[in-house]
Structures are given as C-alpha cells and as structure tokens.
C-alpha cells in the first residue's frame, strides 16, 4: 500500500514534467499538440547519443536534450504551428497528427528501429527502508523532475521572458500593449513546452528504453495528466502527474495490471464530462 503510493509519487513527478509542456503549449497557444510525445522521444535520443558519444549520464544529458529540442520546437512552431493558430480545431488537430506521423517515421529512418538503452551503474540499485523498496533510477528521475519543476516555476515567475509567456497566455492583446512580441513568445513557449518533455524523456532513460515508437506509450498518459490538471495549467499538470502516477500504481492493488489504463481512461472521461476545466484550479 505505502509501497504503491511511493512508487506512484516517484513516477507521477516525472509524468508531471512530461505533461507540463503539453499544458503550457495549450495554455499559451491554445493548440493541443498531439505530436507532443514525439518530442519526448527526440529528447530520449539526444540523451542516448550524449551518453554514447560523450559519456554523459542521461541525468546530465537531459540538459542537452532540453536545449536541442527547444530549438527544434521553436522552428516547428514558427514554420508550421504558427500558420494554424487561427484555424479551426480540426486543422490544428490534424496538423499535429501529421507532425506525429512524420516525426515518428523520420526517427525510424534516422535512428533505426532498435530499442536503445543506456547502462549506468545506479540502474540496478535500490534503497530499502524496512519493507519499502525505492529504485535508484526512479528516485533520481523524480529528483531531476522536481528540480526542473522548481526551475520552471522560477523562470515563469521571475524572468522577463517567463512573465511574458504568462502574460500572453492570460491576455495576448494586453501583452502586445505592453510591448511583448506575441509571435516570438508563441515560438518560445512551444519550444519550452517540448523541451520540458524532452528533459523528462532524458531522465527516465535509465529505466526506459528508447525507440521511434516510444512516444505512443506516453501519449494517452500525457493527455490524461493534463486533463486531470486542467488543460493550460502548469501547476495543475504537475499535480495531475502525481495523481495519475498514484492512480496507476494504486489501481494495481485492486485490479489486474492489464486494466491499469482502463481505470485511467474512465477517470479521464469522467473528468472531461464533469469538470472540463480540470480537477485542480491553478496558475
């Protein structure tokens, strides 16, 4: 019981960071990015190559993932997403779906289909507190997620660019009237959003393998997290992540693991139907 709770929290922290980017992008641009999980995959590959070629531990390589995927995201926003910002949802949905297909298969061509995995010493270590076991990679990934969440909070609250992003999300016209270049801000927010996800992908690399299709394993999970937390809410996504982690983990105490996702989906639909603004009100 306690074990499941702790497992859920450790896992959920990372889910939170992964989904925060999706929520941020929706909050600022109003676009649901169905290709978001593909940037997680890109981040994982960057970290993998950083480990392979530079010998960087993925926990450090995550910084590289963040930077590189940020740049990719910025370009994708300015060249593609920007052009459908005012289009009806159908065009937005299917542009990002097209992006999903293109990125996944481009990765397949470039990286090949094999599952890649790093090997780091702490991968098979764990801590034991009485009856509770904590896997070292889970703990470290959680810690990295917490640090990043704190950094994100500081950035959004304290930096001028962060404030500009929040301002555009809350009132784009008013932001323009104080001199914020909204188009550039949209690019930055999208870049930041996918970079957060890429970072999340890098830190879980010690316990998950990467392949071009890894995004597919996370896509529904991400959406569940942001819907629980309220689409567009950054703080909500972090809390939603923990909630999803805990629900996933605790549900296995009662139901077969096979039905883990069923529990999530049912909650997901229920939340959408009853509280589309999310369970958590927040910034």
């Amino acid at each position, binding site marked *: 019981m306690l074990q499941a709770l702790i497992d859920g929290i450790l896992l959920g922290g990372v889910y939170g960071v992964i989904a925060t980017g999706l929520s941020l992008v929706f909050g600022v641009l109003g676009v649901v990015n169905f290709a978001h999980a593909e940037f997680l995959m890109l981040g994982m590959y960057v970290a993998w190559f950083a480990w392979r070629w530079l010998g960087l531990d993925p926990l450090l390589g995550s910084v590289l993932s963040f930077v590189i995927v940020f740049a990719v995201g910025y370009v994708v926003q300015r060249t593609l997403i920007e052009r459908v910002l005012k289009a009806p949802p159908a065009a937005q949905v299917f542009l990002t779906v097209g992006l999903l297909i293109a990125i996944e298969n481009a990765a397949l061509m470039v990286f090949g289909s094999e599952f890649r995995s790093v090997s780091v010493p702490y991968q098979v270590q764990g801590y034991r507190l009485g009856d509770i076991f904590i896997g070292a990679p889970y703990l470290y990934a959680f810690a990295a997620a917490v640090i990043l969440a704190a950094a994100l909070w500081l950035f959004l609250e304290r930096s*001028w660019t962060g404030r500009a992003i929040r301002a555009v999300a809350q009132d784009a016209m008013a932001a323009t009237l104080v*001199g914020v270049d909204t188009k550039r801000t949209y690019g930055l927010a999208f870049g930041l959003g996918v970079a957060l996800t890429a970072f999340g992908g890098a830190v879980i690399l010690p316990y998950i393998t990467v392949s071009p299709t890894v995004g597919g394993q996370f896509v529904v999970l991400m959406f569940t997290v942001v819907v629980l937390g309220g689409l567009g809410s950054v703080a909500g996504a972090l809390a939603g992540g923990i909630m999803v982690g805990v629900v996933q983990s605790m549900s296995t105490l009662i139901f077969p693991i096979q039905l883990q996702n069923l529990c999530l989906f049912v909650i997901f639909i229920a939340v959408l139907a009853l509280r589309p603004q999310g369970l958590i009100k927040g910034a």
Partner: protein
Amino acid sequence: MPETALSSATPDAAASAVLEVRDLSAAYGGPDVLSAVTLGVRTGETVAVLGANTAGKTTLLRAISGLIPKARGHIAFEGLALLGRPAHTIPGLGIGHVPEGRHVFPRMTTLDNLMMGAFFHRGAKDIAERLERVFTLFPRLQERQAQLAGSMSGGEQQMVSIGRALMGKPKLLLLDEPSHGLAPIVVDELHGAIGAINRQGVSVLLVEQNAMLALSVAHRGYVLEAGHVVLSGSSQSLSADPGVRRAYLGV
C-alpha cells in the same frame, strides 16, 4: 450624415502635436467603422473622444496601437508614422494604452501586472522609482500588490491597468472607457488620477461614453458618430453644445 471638417480639430503646428491622425479609416472585414477621421493631441493636452456605443471610439485607439492591421490613412506620433509598425513595438515609442475592459493579467499579482508594464524598459534602473510613482498615484495598489489581479474589484483592476501603462514611461496615454461599469465614487477617484497624470506631463487621449465626466478633465474634445467626427471644440463649448446630447440620446 454631414461631414464636419473642423480646422480647429487639427493641431496648429506639427511640432507641438504629440499625436496626429489624418483621414483614418478602418474596418473589421465589414463596412468602415471609422471613416476619414482626423484629429490630434498636442503635447501636454488631455483630449476626450466622445460618442455613443459603436461610434468607433475604441477602434480609433486600437488603430493607433497598431492592433488593426487593415487601418488606412495616416497616424503620426511625434512625427513618426505609426501605421504598418508591428503592434508590440508601439509601446516602446512612448504610447501607453489602457484598453477597454481593463485587460489586466488575471492570474498575475498586482505587482507582476505593473512589472509587465515595464517590459519594454526591462533593463532600466528607474523601475523602482516608477513603481513608487504609481503607488503614490494609487495607494490602494501598494496595499494589494500581492493580490491576484483577477480577484480584484473593477475599480482596482482599472487602476492596475492604468498603472501598468504608466510603467512603460508613456508620453501619450490612451485611455479607453476607464469609468465603464464603475461606481460613481470610484469614477471620481480615477478621474482625479487622470488629471494628476496629465499634470506630470503625459498627454492623454481619453475615450469615454460618460461625456460630462470626460469633458471635466479634458481640455478639448471630439464627438464621433458612426465613424465620423461630427463635433469638436474646447471642453467648455462642448459641454454647452446640445449636439453632444443629441449624439447620445437622440433628443
């Protein structure tokens, strides 16, 4: 509708004009909301733009701030042509815009809202000083600086919005319906503040539905009806002009 081109509406000399609008027309895809509007604001002046709903007042201010890409005509700020400039570069020139409906950032604190006003001058050293000046003008904002702007009353939000515009060191302040939906006592307070801002050397272009109120703080005024300037003159002459009342009440 008779076209009233009043020579007194144009500034006497370009040198003394902080804002000059000539033959400005604008539309949102439909018919023109503004038709060949010509008006000006001299340095240090407060000018009111009056008129009923849908007369085109808000459109005028939005066109000045570059928010209406399809505006045609000529707008000059301190001799600089504005039309065609990206909207986000306009505040940096020295134009502060307090939009209709206040448009504070609802999930930011008062302080963060004000700081956003200094976005263009974010490196500047005098931010604290400017903040102090805003707090002197609206002491209530100092008390409420940690409160989320979205949770404040209408009057307080209006103060935040004005304060935010002031943080950008404007030479010209565009105020759109600052008294809209506010209780009379708050309105009085705001208008006192507008006078004070003007006395500090900021030129003001004030859009109001509340004509008497606007004219009580403005030096001059223009009356818009259906996108045209139909009347203009000093505040005193407009206050006495039955044409103003007709523009509003139809009698």
